[in-house]
């Protein structure tokens, strides 16, 4: 049983990574050992520049996320700011929008010339040219910042939620004002969480493919992910791409390790969750400026992009503006039913995401059961969970190159089939499935199974009659948590799709250079609607905090 699990994990995780490493040292034709790929990858100034751009992008976007996220987290967690519900809902909304759709929204808002904001400026000031150009590094930083800052909010807020008011009271009673207390007591206490969030956001920013591709390519600069993609332009140079992907992989692994070190460090006793009384800090007249800032961030990340996307999806031509006679459902109808390309892609998206979620959950569940019930020795168990969690630290784009390297050639020729997409998705989100399965199995007292066995039932009877019925709900939730990111996955799909296996995210990216924004927006809107429906089902099944579990894992 566990041998099978190991075999599957080797197939999904170990082999692609191993192949990635091997291919990076291979001559493409002969397969002989060579360093030429590395020389190729790091000898041109253009390629080195892309690395630098990614670094700048990661640091700038992560910093922007802190600027956006920290005040929001503090306001939501510790103050009596009004309209917290609205702010919280729009942060959740930001989670729901795929980052590349946000990028589309911002192209509509701040594209040079035709962007709404530029038109607004031109109309009000009479200037000849709008000031905004989204196709630039600052534009890219803004877009990525807008869609990554919710991580900072979630991390910082959950840390702040654990700081008891008594700690602040202790500082107050010794004569320190609210402002000083916040800076000198509260902030240091949540610093580990903030650092962890900063690292997470940095990694997210450098691993993203969609937004940079939509914004940096027209802006005529490259980051690592778009450069990787370019190595795959015909004829694909897998070896060079593999070599070029190494720094991304190493930085990611290193930073995740660092992040774990930070969050697991002892000494910050207030984060143990022992609570104590918590009172919101009265803001007085400062509450309106703070609310204003929060709403400003929400405007940038949620309301404005979402508004222009809805407008474009429902407009005959988006440039004609918000008039009633410009309204139509044709775009959506066309996308869903008439156009075979998009219709198939919609169907594919559902089937692949569904199959991937099913595979990931089944595998994760088996492994979680084996490990938790100690059906194997401790070292085997540790190996199993390590391998299962490993994809967590592999950027999707690197995983995709690994899959490409491993399964494009006989004996295992999966490239071009739906399976390579499904398996890549399943692998990518295996850690989410595992974290959830693990939690679910841990919540079942082993004595419930022991009771079955001592009364004469086998282990299988115990699983069928007791474990399975008890896991139903949480597994449905886990399924949704894998399904949602799988429907919008782009960075792995873009390397692995073929003409017959397109999914909506790939299509959206593919159509972006045609300038048909009504269609792009329609595809995006469909994805958002799918996600929202699923989240609502998830809420019903598992309670309101279930979305946050995957980050908590």
């Amino acid at each position, binding site marked *: 049983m566990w041998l099978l699990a190991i075999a599957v994990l080797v197939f999904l995780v170990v082999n692609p990574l191993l192949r990635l490493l091997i291919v990076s040292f291979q001559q493409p034709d002969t397969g002989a050992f060579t360093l030429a790929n590395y020389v190729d990858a790091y000898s041109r100034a253009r390629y080195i520049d892309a690395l630098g751009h990614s670094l700048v992008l990661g640091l700038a976007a992560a910093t922007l996320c802190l600027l956006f996220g920290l005040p929001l987290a503090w306001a939501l967690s510790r103050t009596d700011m009004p309209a917290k519900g609205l702010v919280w809902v729009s942060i959740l909304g930001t989670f729901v929008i795929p980052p590349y759709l946000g990028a589309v929204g911002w192209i509509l808002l701040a594209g040079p010339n035709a962007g709404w904001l530029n038109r607004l400026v031109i109309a009000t000031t009479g200037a000849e040219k709008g000031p905004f150009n989204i196709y630039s590094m600052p534009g890219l930083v803004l877009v990525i910042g807008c869609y990554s800052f919710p991580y900072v909010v979630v991390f910082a807020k959950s840390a702040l939620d654990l700081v008891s008011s008594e700690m602040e009271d202790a500082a107050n009673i010794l004569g320190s004002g609210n402002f000083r207390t916040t800076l000198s007591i509260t902030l240091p206490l949540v610093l580990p969480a903030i650092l962890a969030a900063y690292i997470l956001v940095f990694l997210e920013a450098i691993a993203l493919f969609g937004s940079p591709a939509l914004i940096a390519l027209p802006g005529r600069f490259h980051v690592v992910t778009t450069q990787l993609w370019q190595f795959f332009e015909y004829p694909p140079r897998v070896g060079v791409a593999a070599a070029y992907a190494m720094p991304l992989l190493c930085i990611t692994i290193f930073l995740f390790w660092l992040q774990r070190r930070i969050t697991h460090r002892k000494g910050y006793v207030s984060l143990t969750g022992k609570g104590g009384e918590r009172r919101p800090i009265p803001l007085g007249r400062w509450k309106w400026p703070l609310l204003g800032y929060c709403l400003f961030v929400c405007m940038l990340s949620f309301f404005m992009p979402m508004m222009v996307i809805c407008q474009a999806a429902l407009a005959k031509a988006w440039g004609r503006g918000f008039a009633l006679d410009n309204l139509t459902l044709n775009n959506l109808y066309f996308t869903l039913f008439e156009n075979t390309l998009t219709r198939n892609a919609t169907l594919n998206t559902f089937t692949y995401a569904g199959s991937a979620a099913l595979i990931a959950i089944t595998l994760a569940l088996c492994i979680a059961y084996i490990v938790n019930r100690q059906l194997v020795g401790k070292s085997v168990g540790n190996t199993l969970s390590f391998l299962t969690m490993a994809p967590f630290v592999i950027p999707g784009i690197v995983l995709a190159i690994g899959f490409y390297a491993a399964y494009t050639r006989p004996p295992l020729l999966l490239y071009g089939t739906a399976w390579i997409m499904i398996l890549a998705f399943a692998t990518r989100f295996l850690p989410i499935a595992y974290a959830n399965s693990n939690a679910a199995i841990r919540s079942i*007292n082993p004595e419930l199974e*022991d*009771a079955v066995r*001592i*009364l*004469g039932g086998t282990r299988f*009877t115990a699983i069928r009659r007791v474990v399975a019925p008890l896991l139903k709900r949480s597994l449905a939730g886990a399924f949704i948590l894998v399904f949602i990111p799988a429907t919008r996955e782009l960075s792995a799909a873009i390397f692995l799709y073929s003409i017959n296996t397109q999914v909506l995210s790939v299509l959206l990216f593919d159509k972006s250079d045609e300038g048909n924004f009504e269609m792009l927006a329609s595809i995006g809107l469909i994805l958002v609607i799918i996600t929202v429906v699923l989240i609502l089902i998830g809420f019903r099944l598992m309670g309101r905090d279930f979305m946050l579990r995957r980050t908590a894992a």
Partner: protein
Amino acid sequence: MSKLVLRNLTRTFGDFTAVDNFNLTLQEGELVSLLGPSGCGKTTTLRMIAGFMAPTSGTIEVDGEVISSPTSSLPPEKRKMSMIFQSYAIWPNMTVAENVGFGLQVRKVKSDEIRRRVDAILEKVQLGHLRERYPAELSGGQQQRVALARAIVVKPAVLLLDEPLSNLDANLREEMRFEIRRLHDEFRITTVYVTHDQAEAMVTSDRIAVMNKGRVEQIDAPYALYGRPQTRFVAGFIGRTNFIEGRLNGDAVDFGGFSVPKHALQTDAALPQEVQVSIRPQSIHLLKHEPAVAYGRCRAQAEVQRRAYLGEYWDYYLRLPGTAQILRATARAQDVFDENEPVWIEIDTAQFTVIR
């Protein structure tokens, strides 16, 4: 005939020996408790009997057949036992009746027979009216009764209980002790009962095996265990006691403030030079005036060091002049002595127990 025999049972985890050479024989229909502090190996022993764990060495036999040995262990589902768990392990996805009927269902009993037997046992544990409820809708005590019914209804060869009352509040715990004993008197199932609560063990058991650090200290009926503890651990663990050290001096043992004739201290073996005895606090009588010398009694002068009034009785700490020995004694509520007041103590020498 002996029903259940544990022979030289040993279990180690790495360097740690959880159960060390455990021997125990249960007669048919007997209830024996394994009593000891947490980590003494009693649950490990129970899980070996249940078959969830194989012994490192030694064997377990039921009706003369070996069911556990280091080389082969019958899986739990084949042992025809049943068990009550610390968490009750009531399956939350099944109703009370489904929970109780599960074992019969696995044993392929016909469904009308299952129904009949489930109803009968639920009446026995006073849960007849709750048969269609789900466990989440039951109180802790009711869940406990479901667990009892579920374990008994299959008429197990051996019934195992793992700290079954530790999750109940104090009142309910007292009530359930008697309930368990009542059900045992009615069904006479051979039972092994694991607990760390001595009162629980005393109420329910025919015999108690006191365990410490993986070893058995003493196996005896509750009365004998309290009255004649054989080891210091047992004396200290079952009830409160005083330990006094004395020296053999001719025909008497000298305890400092008083001495006791050698023949008064019952013991199997010869007395060593250094004698250690246990005396229960309620066996020490306090008197205002010097008592008359009497056969089978010893007396000494003492002084009240501190005292506490506990409503039902007084708790006195007594200092024996000229020694470092402090004795605890309990006295009736009306026997009032002030701190630092000199008192006389009188002890029935038969109450001394020599400790190994």
